[in-house]
């Protein structure tokens, strides 16, 4: 029991604080932070653990969102089933493109994913317009049935559901950190030749990491779809392809809480700065340059060793010096 609490306490504290923030921050802001942070954690895992930078995350977000949207628009009304449909759609699409993409070097991997995002955008906007309603998108807010226990049609109850999902997602990624698979992911990033000569398959490790990461991204897409009650091709616009990468770097690459801290900072900067400055992205750009020059640790990556020292009362924080978190 004590061990279980020790294992979970960081995650529970982080999302407990976010849940408390819900009472003095606007609900749409907190909901967006929750969904966006789930969106980012897959990208952070790929970049930080496997060494793959992806500018195609909007494509996987769209697979999840459209999977849910098609279900709720054409098939059924239960939002939970819709979310499952979105996740399944993301899993299937990642399993189809993954075997091709993970064979590529990191730079080509980034570009081929960006190309996929562009392809998905035009597929949804033009080729499949008969089903996706083109630029107008699919509107299904009124189709979503009210459900017992947590009615996802209500923002306040959606918030509780999204918090629980986020805790489960963070639990999954923390668990992966502790597994041999998690160590293999890091090993394939650090020294793929060595991993190969230990007898492991770099390809299989990368493929599984790719599928896990992008199914998580699809989950974020499915949550977006239910939360907004609509999906349009804009969700996979190439112009927003760098967003999860930016948030990952802002929060701290390869850290467990980097995506959450990065999302909080990014969303807050966007919402606050955009009221005063027209080109708020310029400001974010300067912050990113500063973070890169300051050692690429990001906000959480810089704060974590201090917090660890604080909580472990000065014990050597050797483990925090590396990429395992």
């Amino acid at each position, binding site marked *: 029991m004590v061990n279980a609490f020790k294992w979970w306490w960081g995650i529970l504290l982080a999302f407990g604080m976010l849940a408390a923030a819900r009472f003095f921050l606007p609900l749409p802001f907190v909901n967006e932070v929750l969904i966006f942070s789930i969106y980012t954690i897959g990208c952070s895992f790929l970049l930080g653990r496997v060494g793959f930078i992806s500018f195609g995350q909007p494509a996987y977000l769209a697979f999840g969102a459209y999977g849910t949207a098609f279900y709720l628009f054409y098939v059924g009304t239960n939002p939970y089933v819709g979310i499952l449909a979105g996740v399944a759609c993301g899993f299937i699409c990642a399993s189809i493109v993954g075997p091709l993409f993970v064979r590529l070097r990191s730079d080509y991997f980034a570009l081929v994913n960006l190309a996929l995002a562009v392809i998905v955008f035009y597929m949804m906007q033009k080729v499949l317009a008969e089903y996706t309603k083109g630029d107008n998108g699919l509107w299904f807010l009124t189709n979503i049935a009210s459900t017992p226990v947590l009615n996802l049609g209500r923002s306040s109850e959606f918030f509780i559901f999204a918090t629980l999902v986020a805790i489960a997602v963070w639990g999954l990624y923390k668990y992966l950190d*502790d597994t041999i698979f998690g160590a293999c992911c890091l090993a394939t990033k650090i020294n793929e030749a060595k991993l190969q000569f230990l007898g492991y398959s770099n390809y299989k490790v990368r493929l599984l990491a790719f599928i896990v990461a992008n199914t998580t991204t699809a989950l974020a897409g499915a949550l977006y779809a239910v939360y907004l009650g609509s999906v349009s091709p804009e969700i996979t616009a190439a112009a927003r392809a760098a967003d999860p990468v930016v948030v990952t770097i802002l929060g701290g690459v390869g850290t467990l809480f980097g995506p959450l801290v990065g999302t909080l900072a990014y969303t807050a900067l966007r919402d606050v700065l955009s009221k005063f400055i027209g080109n708020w992205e310029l400001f974010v750009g300067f912050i990113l340059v500063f973070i890169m020059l300051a050692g690429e640790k990001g906000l959480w990556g810089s704060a974590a060793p201090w917090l660890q020292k604080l909580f472990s009362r000065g014990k050597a924080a050797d483990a925090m*010096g*590396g990429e395992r978190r």
Partner: protein
Amino acid sequence: MSIEILKASSVTKRFGAMVAVNRVDFTLYEHDVAGIIGSNGAGKTTFFNLLTGLFAPEEGSILHKGVDVTRMTPQQRVARGITRTFQLTSTFDTLSVTDNLVLAYYRAFHKASMWNLFFTKMKRFHDEPKIISILETFDLLPVRDRMVKNLSLGEKRRLEIAMAVLAEPEVLLLDEPLAGLAESEIKGVLAVLRRHIGKQTILIVEHKISHVQDFVQRLMVMHEGRVIAEGGYEECLNHPEVRKSYWQIDDSATENSSNG
């Protein structure tokens, strides 16, 4: 009669116009402790890479216990019991010492399917007797929780060899395992490796002959991609071509001048 474990026949590797390994024949017998020596650029590491599957030869074949492994991937060769270390220390620097060993241990003694990797925790093996024993043997117990990037070069070398030995491979291929080590560390590493003589087949590539003098039973000397001598330690060292290429001692010139 000794069993042939690894057999390279007329193996050739070219990089553009340069012939890095030129029709090399070499046989490694069961429980052999053999060495490959040669000056820089002699083709030792390239030949080693051909044996372990990092490169594929243009010509020739490599057999492992009679099975053609010439086109097999490194992963397939590891599964057959052929393990190697690298000339430049090769470890996972942002993992702990124990985690590095767990990765080597798990693949060697468990079925490393993706399912198993996904559902098995690293911590389960941290106190595995084989891992503790290897940590003690290689004097790594005091640094077991340290991140590998924070180790000294000697400690990293010991860790890399420990990872190779831990897997209990049939064939242990060591690429310059003593490079960059202090004399005391060299003695330590060789002492550990001596314990594996008679249990495993060992092939060691080394630049400095003196390091492996008391260790290897058989030598192969390479020069400019060719094998110029093969046999016992003294036999190889007294070979005229070895003296000429290794120490620039030209016996024929000495003979002529003394005759003259």
